[in-house]
């Protein structure tokens, strides 16, 4: 056990975690050169295409240190995007230390701070690593000052590397061995194991990712999931090599996997403790904060015949994404669908893309919403995340919306622009600090609804790309709300409705009409778009008809070419939903949430 080191790589988005993991994997020689590819741990198509990590990935690396001793390094690469920060916190629960990466050009950013705090809460050894020192804009000294003043860490404990070029990687691996403490625990004690992830495998069922704190688990053992209360017989245990490697047992200090004939991922709860059925431990290990959906939207198939297919796809998708939740829903305009909960807009986009790609579905998402709380005249409290279920306005006694505490970091010169933006987003109770000269950390409370509504893009432009942002949900606060409805050629399109802050309702109505006008392509007849609040029309826009679309000549040699063009156009039209006789493109439903200054 003395030779094991468990650690995560954490950082702000894009600071190079997965790339550093690549270099360490290559250094350890577990993947031969032929099978290697960049960001090898990002194994989902969508991760590779977007160049971001969505799921944490664990891998076990053998390492022989300078003093000639052999070590086992259990590395967990984590995602950087704020939507997936719960992934980070779970990973940390299985570690004794972290590499906290900081981009040498960008310096400390909001998630650097947020992740540092998380590591501190878990009492982990922190090794600051300054990455991307090969960049022309790299400024190692400045980052060292920030490590001191903004992170409160000793800058002289930091290491520098270029994950891209591989410089400094050896020193990092040496530091992991020297500085991160080995796991404690007794392999003979009662089994206590934390589940930090679970993945679905079509052949083996659920593969539990776990960290053993006490005791030993072997194949053939009967294990008990303490929270779930179920028992299972272990079929296989092993470590995360590439690919998985089966072993005799997992013992205290180990990170590895357990396969125990569990059919679906929903049968295990992340954060649950696994113990031995025969000799259970006294009490479960501390669990994790539950990941709660904060953004909600309905999903509809573009062709209503595809409903069953969509239902099957969601069920399968859910197997591998426990943070995604859904239930049946139906819309007057769009038909049968599902109401779904997401961790944020990025999560929503990713679910949409994966459903379309991996299950070959064409879907429409309704306008995303947060979850509101209403107290009705009869004293009942209801949570509403679907504008279609907006209560009768006469019956509402009190309405409330979720608030977040946002932490932003940016250069001082952008103060004016950021404050203006926050004010527009109804920010309150702000506090400012100057972690280092010229840099500002702003903590401010804002309604979540206004943050999902294009805040992140706007912050980026207000700070010319130098601003970063992190948030936590804090509580519900009273707020005057209204239901904004959209009519297209007189037909109400419920999937375009939004619950909005009354003070902004008119302006939001205007903007929705404008955005729709840009998104809905001109058609052969005029299209009227209207915004209505409580039955009163507050905004309108008209899309004029086009009158001419004709090819002059169509003889023998033109027919195939022309047909191919039409086929392409028809394909494009398949991505639109017919509402009455108007074709509304998929993009319109999300575009409503974006403002025009992005």
């Amino acid at each position, binding site marked *: 056990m003395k030779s094991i080191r468990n650690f995560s790589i954490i950082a702000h988005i894009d600071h190079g975690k997965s790339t550093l993991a690549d270099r360490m994997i290559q250094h350890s020689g577990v993947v031969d050169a032929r099978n290697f590819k960049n960001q090898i741990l990002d194994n989902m198509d969508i991760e590779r295409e977007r160049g971001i990590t969505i799921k944490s990935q664990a891998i076990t690396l053998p390492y022989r240190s300078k003093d000639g001793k052999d070590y086992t390094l259990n590395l967990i690469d984590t995602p950087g995007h704020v939507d997936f920060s719960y992934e980070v916190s779970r990973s940390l629960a299985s570690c004794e230390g972290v590499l906290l990466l900081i981009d040498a050009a960008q310096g400390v950013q909001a998630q650097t701070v947020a992740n540092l705090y998380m590591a501190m809460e878990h009492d982990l050894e922190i090794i600051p690593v300054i990455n991307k020192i090969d960049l022309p804009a790299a400024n190692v000294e400045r980052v060292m000052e920030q490590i001191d003043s903004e992170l409160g860490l000793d800058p002289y404990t930091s290491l520098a590397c270029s994950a891209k070029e591989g410089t400094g990687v050896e020193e990092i691996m040496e530091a992991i061995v020297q500085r991160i403490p080995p796991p404690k625990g007794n392999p003979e004690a009662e089994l206590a194991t934390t589940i930090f992830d679970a993945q679905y495998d079509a052949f083996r069922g659920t593969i539990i990712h776990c960290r053993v704190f006490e005791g030993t688990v072997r194949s053939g053992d009967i294990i008990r999931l303490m929270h779930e209360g179920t028992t299972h017989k272990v079929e296989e245990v092993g470590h995360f090599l590439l690919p998985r490697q089966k072993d005799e047992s997992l013992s205290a200090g180990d990170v590895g996997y357990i396969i125990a004939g569990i059919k679906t991922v929903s049968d295990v709860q992340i954060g649950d403790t696994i113990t031995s059925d025969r000799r259970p431990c006294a009490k479960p290990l501390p669990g994790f904060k539950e990941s709660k959906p904060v953004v909600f939207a309905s999903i509809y198939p573009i062709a209503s015949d595809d409903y069953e297919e969509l239902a099957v796809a969601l069920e399968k998708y859910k197997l591998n994404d426990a943070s995604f939740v859904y239930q049946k829903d139906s819309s007057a305009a769009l038909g049968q669908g599902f109401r779904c909960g997401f961790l944020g807009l990025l999560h929503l986009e990713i679910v949409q893309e994966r459903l379309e790609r991996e299950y070959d579905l064409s879907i429409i998402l309704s306008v995303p919403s947060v979850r509101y709380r209403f107290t009705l005249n009869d004293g009942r409290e209801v949570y509403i995340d679907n504008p279609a279920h907006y209560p009768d306005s006469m019956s509402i006694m009190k309405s409330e919306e979720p608030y977040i505490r946002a932490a932003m970091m940016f250069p001082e010169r952008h103060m004016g622009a950021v404050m203006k933006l926050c004010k527009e987003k109804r920010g309150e109770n702000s506090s400012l600090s100057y972690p280092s000269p010229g840099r500002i950390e702003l903590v401010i409370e804002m309604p979540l609804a206004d943050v999902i509504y294009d805040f992140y893009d706007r912050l980026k432009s207000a700070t010319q790309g130098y601003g970063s942002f992190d948030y936590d949900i804090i509580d519900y606060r009273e707020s005057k709300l209204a239901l904004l409805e959209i009519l297209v050629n007189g037909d109400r399109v419920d999937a375009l409705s939004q619950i909005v802050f009354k003070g902004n309702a008119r302006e939001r109505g205007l903007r929705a009409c404008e955005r729709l006008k840009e998104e809905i392509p001109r058609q052969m007849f005029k299209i009227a778009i209207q915004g209505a609040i409580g039955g009163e029309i507050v905004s309108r826009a008209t899309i004029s008809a086009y009158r001419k679309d*004709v090819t002059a000549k169509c003889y023998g040699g033109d*027919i195939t070419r022309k047909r191919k063009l039409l086929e392409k156009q028809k394909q494009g039209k398949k991505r639109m939903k017919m509402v009455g006789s108007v074709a509304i493109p998929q993009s319109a439903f999300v575009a409503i949430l974006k403002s025009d200054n992005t």
Partner: protein
Amino acid sequence: MIPGIYIHIPFCLSKCGYCDFYSVTEAGKIPLFTTSLIREMEMYRGVFDRFDTIYLGGGTPSLLGADQTGQLLDALHRTFLFFDDTEVTIEANPGDLSPEMASSLYTAGIGRISIGVQSFDDGTLALLGRRHSATEAITAIENARRAGFGNVGLDLIYGVPGQNIRSWLETIHTALSFAPEHLSCYQLTLEPSTPLGLRYRSGEIVPPDDALLCEFFMKTSETLEAAGYVHYEVSNFARGDEWMSRHNRKYWDHTPYLGLGPAAHSFSGNRRWWNHRCLDRYIEEVGRKVSPIGGSEMLTGEQLRLESLYLGLRTKRGVDLDEFAHRYGCDLLHEKGELLRTMQREDLITITGNHLRPTRAGLLLSDSLPLL
């Protein structure tokens, strides 16, 4: 479904500025080409039923001269079967239509002549890069009539940069003064790869805007219909139903046709194929008794359906809904009822009995209508 024959004559004296038809200026290759054509005919002996149209198009078929044209027609008759009343059309450029030429074409058995007048305005002709003048065009028409042609068609182009409605209507009225049996009025398409297309892209020439083009189209249709012509396809008008182009209509209702010569397209059953778009390769392959086919496609039921809908909606005949349902298993009225009603309300189509027809405004949108 009686098939037709198209022959592509890929020669021109020079290239017009807007043209993207396949043609070359190497007139020296004409004899070799004619021999090749006759060889290619051999390859199809016995494949098609009796034909009732022959269409010599191009390029500039009138460049062949009377002898070679006669040879071609003889070879066709030796190789294939034809109905007695076969419609034989030739496209001719005004510059080639001397009284002698016109007479010999007529004597060779060609009954229908389509003259590439394009405009009666010299400025417009110059911009288009045509070799002839308005006066030459008039002489050509007169020569054709004198030679005995009782079925004369004129090709005209509108929407030319700098052209206005008034000057276009003057061209139309001049054309009408010859009482042609057929008129094709094409809106100028600025194909990207042509000299005119390039000048357009560089901003040097500016075509009329969309609103004006709509007006050109509507005015053309109104004027010609008022003069007794039938607007039977987007760009085609006939002085009565009997003067519609029998050959061209085959393209629009999936009637089989055999295309001979480089770049020519053929269609039969659910297969379409086309020859290489290269004269030298054509001559070389046919010389080796190799088929000069450059590509082909088998149309799926879905593709046939789409073609039939879009081609139908380009014509006055429209789409017979019962027949459509029968052939393609798709009841448009039932499946697209709401959209059809909206289009009807917007005066883009009419539905009478079981017939779906584009209105004049609908023809102007005939690339969009089939997307319903």
